[in-house]
């Protein structure tokens, strides 16, 4: 069993002091420890953004891809070696702007990876522009008079799109967040955890204080059952997604188990050669 320390790289962080991403990092590391993962069998795919730098700080196999494409990379990785624990991380711009198409298709494909979106309602790395989750009226360098677009509600979209695991955490609420990530990893299909992770430099509206005042914690609300799509949608609608906890989960079989003939042994462990008998059968289809 690996320890928290073993999941650290010791590299000095490039994040601003106070950034929400520190909390996401710690929660991910705790969750990895909790599920009994080990650094060598863990793979983390990250997108581009302040958030995307998270892979630099977790001792594991890390791949830092192009902006918006973390999810397809994770699909490739998972099918190549289905024994790996695969986590995917990125920002709200990475996930819901340039990455929106892949996000919707990952949900319907339901392959077994855990997607952690570090949502700060702003573009951090490019120094403060409006993001798809920015609220209407949010002022940035690209919308100095306030955003005029309806914000994306990622959780509602995920539930509507047929997701099998949908949760939201807050980087300041460590135990809940770590637990949600742990459950996401344990879920045998695609799990989405949208994490409120404040940007202290470019978002002066959706601050820690603001969230502490407005966020509702489902865990404190006795009786919430996360197994019904309509209840989940209604809850998200009522709270305007200002809610943390496990919102929806269903029993499921992951994509990789449904692919006809797909090997249960990780592909990377197989002999790459084709055997003569199979080969002749294949050629026979061309005769």
């Amino acid at each position, binding site marked *: 069993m690996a320890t928290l320390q073993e999941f650290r790289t010791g590299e000095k962080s490039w994040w601003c002091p106070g950034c929400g991403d520190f909390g996401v990092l710690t929660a991910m590391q705790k969750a990895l420890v909790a599920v009994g993962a080990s650094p060598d069998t863990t793979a983390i795919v990250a997108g581009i953004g302040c958030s995307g730098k998270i892979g630099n700080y977790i001792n594991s196999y890390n791949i830092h891809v192009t902006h918006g494409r973390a999810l397809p990379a994770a699909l490739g990785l998972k099918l190549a070696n289905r024994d790996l624990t695969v986590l995917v991380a990125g920002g709200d711009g990475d996930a819901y702007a340039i990455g929106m198409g892949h996000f919707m298709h990952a949900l319907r494909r339901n392959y077994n990876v855990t997607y952690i979106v570090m949502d700060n309602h702003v573009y951090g790395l490019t120094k403060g522009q409006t993001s798809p989750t920015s609220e209407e009226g949010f002022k940035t360098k690209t919308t100095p008079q306030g955003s005029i677009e309806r914000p994306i509600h990622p959780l509602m979209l995920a539930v509507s799109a047929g997701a099998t695991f949908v949760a939201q955490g807050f980087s300041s609420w460590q135990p809940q967040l770590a637990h949600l990530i742990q459950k996401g990893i344990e879920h045998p299909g695609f799990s989405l955890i949208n994490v409120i992770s404040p940007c202290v430099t470019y978002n002066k509206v959706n601050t820690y204080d603001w969230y502490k005042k407005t966020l509702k914690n489902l865990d404190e609300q006795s009786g919430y059952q996360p197994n019904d799509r309509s209840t989940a949608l209604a809850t998200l609608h009522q709270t305007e997604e200002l809610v943390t906890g496990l919102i929806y989960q269903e029993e499921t079989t992951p994509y990789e188990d449904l692919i006809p003939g797909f090997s249960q042994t990780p592909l990377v462990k197989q002999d790459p050669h084709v055997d003569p008998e199979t080969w002749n059968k294949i050629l026979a289809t*061309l005769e």
Partner: protein
Amino acid sequence: MLAWKIGGDQGEGIDSTGDVLATVANRMGYYVYGYKHFSSRIRGGHTNYKVRIATSRVEATTRRTDILVALNQETIDRNVHELEGGLILADESFSPVLPEGADAHLLTLPLTNIARSLGSIMMRNMVAVGASAALIQLPLDAFVDYVTVKFEKKGEAVVNANREAVTTGYQRVIDEYRALLTFKLGDPSRGDRLVITGNDAIALGAIAGGCRLMYGYPITPATEIMEALVRWFPSVGGAVVQMEDELGSITAVIGAGFAGARAMTSSSGPGISLMQEAMGLASVAEIPAVIVDTQRGGPSTGMPTKQEQSDLLALLHGGHGDTLRVVLTPGSVEECFEDAVEAFNLAEQFQTPVIIATDLSLALWKQSVERKSLNGPNVSIRKGSTLSPEDLLALGENVFQRYQFSPDGISPRSLPGEKNGQYLATGVEHGPSGKVSEDPANRERMMNKRLTKLLGVAAIRDGFRYEGPDHPELILVGIGSTVGILREALHHLRGQVGLGWFRTLSPFPVDRVQSVLAPAKHIMVVEQNALGQIRQLMAAHGVSDDRFTSYLKYDGVPFLPEEVVTRAMSLLSPVEVH
């Protein structure tokens, strides 16, 4: 040598009819080559399928048609100029007319009526097949056997009706047109051959080369690679994922390559353009990836069902920033198989994206290929430089230096799942450990490492092939499907003419090109694009002087060997033309 063609409207089964003829002739020991003319629509619109049948290898189409099976008048009107005295077998139902001045014999048969009388007009094409067999003087049995197996699953009634259709067509020709049966094909040669396309060969090569993942998105003329792997992968435990787009496809391939599986994607121009950004990631993060570009008429949607070789510069230079890419250019169906296997080897050995560039003609047209040239189980697989578990463990507390500098620029890699091998693969510039680095000195070294490493490809692969005399007066230079066309042209050019073709377009095999072309008095670069992309590339590498001329074509139609012969003759000194 004989050229048979069937033409009609799209959606009328022209394809499968041509396939029957090609398959049966191949089984009998003839060499076949099939060429289809089609449009970007599903039904309607003229389509035709030409099959050349010969007693030796054939890998191009020529102008002449000996027998034209016409299912409508448009087919006659559009193709009659190819006949030069040949036969037209037309369905009576549309009251065929021979255009004025046509140099052809018109035979008619009530193809539709015969089919209808056998139960369904769907069998019209089978009647035509039987009639064609008679005209070509191929034995009826072989066709009857073929349909028996082909329709087996559909039940005895269907089998019988189709046998009847073929037989009736055959018999009616024998009965009515015996006098015209003058074609002599010559004796077939023994041998075990399959009739396959370049797309088939690539899919086969991928399987043989250990590829077990394919992420793709449909597009003409690449789709068949994905579709073939969908059929074949279950038997080897692999998976094909139809992605939401090509951005997703290439990135999934990169994810798989990072994890250590052999993975590929295939597309054509529009999809390849979308992959440009991610290919740069694979280059910088040194991740193997195999990408097939089956070129078609561009730019943009362009001419999606037409032949062209116009993505070459984009394959080399399409992404932002400084990279070298490995671009393999097979010049025959067999080379498609070889290069598909080799692409996976090179990708892992050099830890880099490898592109296989084919073109519509090479990708889609079927031809006879020796079974022994498709020896899947026996190909050699080179996994490239990896650290052994012992090496990794020996690192102890030290961080694995994934990108450590080395004389050949290649650094051994670790694969996820291996103890002690954790590292960061990133598209951001990084130091030897993989960690992001903005240090100028490191940047320069890393850039040199990546660029010089790829020059190693030239050391292990002959990137420019040559066939021909030692002291050629003229060398024809080609690529992709053009190579087969030039080879056929060579048969008709008895002078001192040689053929040079690219097997690796990048890294550019400059030394080899220079030495091959050195003795030639003239060099004609034959390419199917408007910009003379290969010429430009040669010039950019200093291979250019006044011996060079270009022969370009960019109207969507392949070169004909005859056209190449004419053009070549104009370069050769008169005394040498026989």
